[in-house]
């Protein structure tokens, strides 16, 4: 398969994720959609790594996976804290950072 197929597929997945972030209201689903976008980026990085023929893009993708895991852990921690304090699980009503 040509590399461009993979890159176009990653653009597709990225846009689906972006649509989800823009339309959904639940922070859980928004985190899932951010995962989609990060994974689309990973696919593009690995495709370009294959294109260039060296492994540096794969290292980059691995670091992106680590950052995504950190982001998930912090995001889910915030959601659990919201739930503990009986706040509505809705991004529109969570518009300020002050606890």
């Amino acid at each position, binding site marked *: *398969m*040509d*590399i*461009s*197929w*993979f*890159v*176009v*597929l990653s*653009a*597709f*997945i990225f*846009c*689906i994720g*972006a*649509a*989800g972030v*823009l*339309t*959904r*209201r*639940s922070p*859980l*689903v928004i*985190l*899932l*959609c951010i*995962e*989609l976008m990060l*994974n689309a980026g*990973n*696919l593009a990085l*690995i495709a370009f*790594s*294959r*294109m*260039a*023929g060296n*492994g*540096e893009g*794969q*290292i980059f*993708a*691995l*670091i992106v*996976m*680590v*950052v995504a*895991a*950190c982001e*998930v852990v*912090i995001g*889910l*921690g915030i*959601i*659990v*804290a919201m739930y*503990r304090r009986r706040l509505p*699980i*809705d991004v529109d009503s969570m518009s300020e950072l002050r606890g």
Partner: protein
Amino acid sequence: MLFEQLLFFVAGLGAIAGAVGVVTLRNPFFSVLALVAHLISLSVLFLLLTAAFLAAAQVVVYAGAVMVLYVFVVAYVGGSDEEMRHESTGWLGILGPLFALLLLIELTIAVVGSGLSVLDTRGADVGAAFGAPGQIGELLLTKFLLPFEIASFLLLVAAVGAVMLARKRRGLEEPADTISVADLVRSDAGTQKEAVRG
């Protein structure tokens, strides 16, 4: 190769179907399951790009560990029967997908119209060791040692931060009354109620 193309289309359709499922399904639990399907399809695509180590890491770390974390939080916060009532409607529900579509058109024009002739090849000739754990490990410990260490430190910071965020806060809730067994079995107390009061 016909088999390779077949595998690409099956895995690509699976990845897109999983992504659409994540966005459209109403119950967050099913969204998580759709994301697991998406991640597994994506790991097949990684294998097609000869990134064997990353494909394995994708299945083990993402579809395994991170998704279990999601499932636990969805189960803890509870499904979202109540979420449907204020799901986005009106202009935001139309404008969001419209912007995403415009972004897709722009990205596709950028990729297809880039004039990068190497995009229309199968990539550079690589050996069998490309993307194997040996190569990844060697790169991580030589050329990319600093990002590797920073990533490990970032994981530590995130773990501590998650514990700080999700812990029970003292002072917000009343501390539970502590009742020891000695209060209940004390012989000189009259009723059990008095024993509990201490």
